[in-house]
């Protein structure tokens, strides 16, 4: 796997290319990149044939342990890979520890192990166990096991434990990684920990920066879940800026979590390259339809969707949901608790968010990134602009 960027500035919005995957050598991705969030091996609510109608392009799927760890035995037994097991082998996949759409339980730390919460309860994962899982899954990219259980309120003691434990876990994972035949073309990513403490961030980067890593995950800023969309730039700016300034320019930087679109743009401006699509999923689960990119006169531009509004969510949207179905129908499906409501919202929201990333890349290339940023920021900062962001069905 290789990452190339022609950016010379350390902390700025940049275009990069991610390519050289051994499994699918012709696939390449341009950054800033959106990883497609998956749960239990599928894009939530979408069967593969529906997902394919949404995007014909190559995609990089994000996979996390809580919804998949129970599959490990079967994957091992069948001597296959995760991508093959879940029938997604035409897509590149990226394995991380926690599920960005759901709040990770805090605590339950033991010496050099991490707790993963599956459907059936807590599973304790050591570096050895994790690397066994990784060798069974055979992802194209993965994050080393780490303790990212910190947020803006974490105390110094918790932060230093997180940094220390993550260091030990990284060393253990890397040892196994470097000896593994299976993983010799797999990229391992280093998690930068340290919460909101700059000194701790520096310590974390110090032990990571000379290691043979494919890139860095700026971890430990939050505990995942829907609350992440409410984190503002002011809270994270200093620590992210500081962290990125210490990271090598030529390596990719990833930030997981359902950041809102305005914060995504801010993070891109600070030099983050990769995000995941848990945001449109979380919005779908909140029964909302994204409209933050709509700048034309969406008729009936109220933020509540009416039962007799026979226009689509967005008249200019090319997604399957907007091309074929009305707000009235989606409203009805939602009120009768029909599963198709979530299917249609997920189609629209994912489409909207993929469009967002297309616009981001274009705007960086043609020098209009700041205009895009101003426009989206206005929608997210204005007090009474619910309708500009999304419609609640």
């Amino acid at each position, binding site marked *: 796997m290789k990452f190339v960027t022609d950016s010379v500035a350390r902390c700025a919005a940049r275009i990069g290319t991610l390519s050289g995957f051994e499994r699918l050598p012709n696939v390449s991705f341009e950054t800033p990149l959106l990883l497609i969030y998956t*749960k*239990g*091996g*599928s*894009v*939530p*609510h*979408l*069967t*593969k*044939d*529906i997902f394919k109608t949404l995007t014909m392009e190559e995609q990089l799927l994000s996979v996390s342990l809580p919804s998949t760890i*129970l*599959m490990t*035995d*079967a994957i091992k*037994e*069948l001597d*296959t890979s995760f991508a093959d*097991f*879940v*029938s997604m082998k035409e897509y590149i996949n990226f394995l991380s520890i926690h599920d960005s759409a759901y709040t990770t339980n805090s605590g339950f730390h033991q010496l050099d192990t991490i707790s993963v919460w599956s*459907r059936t309860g807590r599973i304790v994962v050591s570096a050895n166990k994790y690397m066994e899982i990784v060798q069974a899954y055979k992802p194209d990219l993965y994050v080393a096991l780490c303790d990212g259980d910190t947020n803006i309120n974490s105390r110094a003691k918790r932060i230093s434990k997180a940094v220390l434990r993550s260091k030990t876990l990284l060393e253990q994972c890397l040892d196994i990684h470097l000896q593994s035949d299976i993983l010799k073309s797999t990229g391992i990513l280093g998690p930068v920990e340290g919460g909101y403490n700059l000194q701790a961030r520096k310590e974390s980067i110090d032990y990571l920066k000379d290691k043979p890593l494919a890139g860095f995950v700026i971890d430990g800023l939050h505990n995942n879940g829907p609350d992440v969309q409410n984190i503002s730039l002011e809270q994270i700016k200093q620590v992210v800026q500081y962290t990125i300034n210490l990271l090598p320019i030529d390596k990719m930087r990833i930030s997981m979590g359902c950041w809102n679109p305005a914060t995504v743009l801010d993070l891109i401006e600070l030099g983050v390259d990769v995000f995941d699509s848990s945001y449109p999923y979380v919005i779908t689960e909140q029964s909302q339809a994204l409209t933050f990119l709509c700048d034309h006169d969406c008729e009936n531009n109220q933020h509540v969707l009416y*039962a*007799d509004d*026979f226009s689509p969510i967005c008249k200019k949207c090319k997604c*399957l949901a907007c091309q*074929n*179905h*009305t707000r*009235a*129908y989606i409203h*009805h*499906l939602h*009120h*009768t608790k*029909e*599963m*198709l409501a*979530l*299917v249609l919202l997920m189609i629209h929201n994912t489409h909207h968010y993929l469009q967002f990333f297309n616009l981001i890349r274009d705007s960086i290339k043609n020098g209009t990134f700041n205009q895009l940023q101003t426009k989206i920021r206005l929608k997210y900062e204005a007090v009474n602009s619910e309708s500009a962001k999304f419609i609640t069905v």
Partner: protein
Amino acid sequence: MANRKTPLIFEVLAECETTKARTGRMTLVHHYVDTPVFMPVGTQGTLKGLLPQQLEQLDCQIILGNTYHLGNRPGADILRKAGGLHRFMNWKRALLTDSGGFQMVSLLHLAEITEEGVKFKSPYNESECMLTPEHSIQIQNTIGADIIMQLDDVVKSTLTGPRVEEAMHRTIRWLDRCLLAHERPDEQSIFPIVQGGLNPELRSECARQLIKREVNGYAIGGLSGGESKDDFWKMVHLSTNILPKNKPRYLMGVGFAIDLIVCSALGVDMYDCVFPTRTARFGCALIKTGQLNLKQIQNKKDSRPIDESCECSTCKTYSRAYLHQIATVETVSCHLLTVHNIAFQMKLMRDIRDSIKEQRFPRFIQDYMLIVYPNKDYPTWIINALRAVNVTLL
């Protein structure tokens, strides 16, 4: 009358030389329908998580909507503004709606049936409501399905005594009120419903009365509600003997593979049932020998698809082992099993139609029953029902 458009043309393309089975094509306002046909149930204007284009890909030509549910939500007003259910849900092919009477009686304990209609307390505001035959047709006219059902007086299929006879006669009287109230006869066909419980005389009498009315097709109702299979097939057999051959016959609430095969041999053309979609939500896939419960542990390391011979997108893509992991956990699993189960029903009906066309339906029955009962321990009712139409099992 000569100039009036017919909203239903039924052509019988082939008749089985041994049994009463036939295969044909119904031409409706929105789409044609090849019979015998299984109609998946899309109760509230959606078929459990599937998009209309997925149903088209599955070769569904007609689906069913429930008047009681649609009348409540979104309600007749919204459906009128939308221009009918077809446009509301963006389904371009044929639709059938029931009368709402069955749900009324089965869902609402407080329903009381009078000559005027079904009286019930609204589940929303406790107010007294009345569903009359006229009202049912009025809502169904608004929904705009290609085939609509008369309001019938439904009694529990195992009930006996004078109430069954009363219900049978009332059903006929209500039919006449429905036909009179029908405002879109050029676009929608009302099907009368043969009632009469498990009493052969009452059923025959009902069927004989109904065939005097000028309609485009008939339904057989009040069955598949817990009666013995022996009673069930006899009532179907007797009804199809009376109903005219040149009109489609719809057996309500039937959807198990075995029942579809036997009843097709008895001359039935249309079926509906919630079973294939409901069982999918519980993690079960339909296979020839019955059902495969994907939650069961033996699927955990099974890399085969649900059915190796199945052409559906689920079987072409996913393994039992993966479906085992997500069954009843992820909504995707429900969509995948629903796709398979509908594909299964569609394939079964296509096989039935093809074998009738090629005059090998009796052989098809024999082979299928042998797959389901490899030890030849056929249930008596199947043996008897098939014997009645000249088929002896192997």
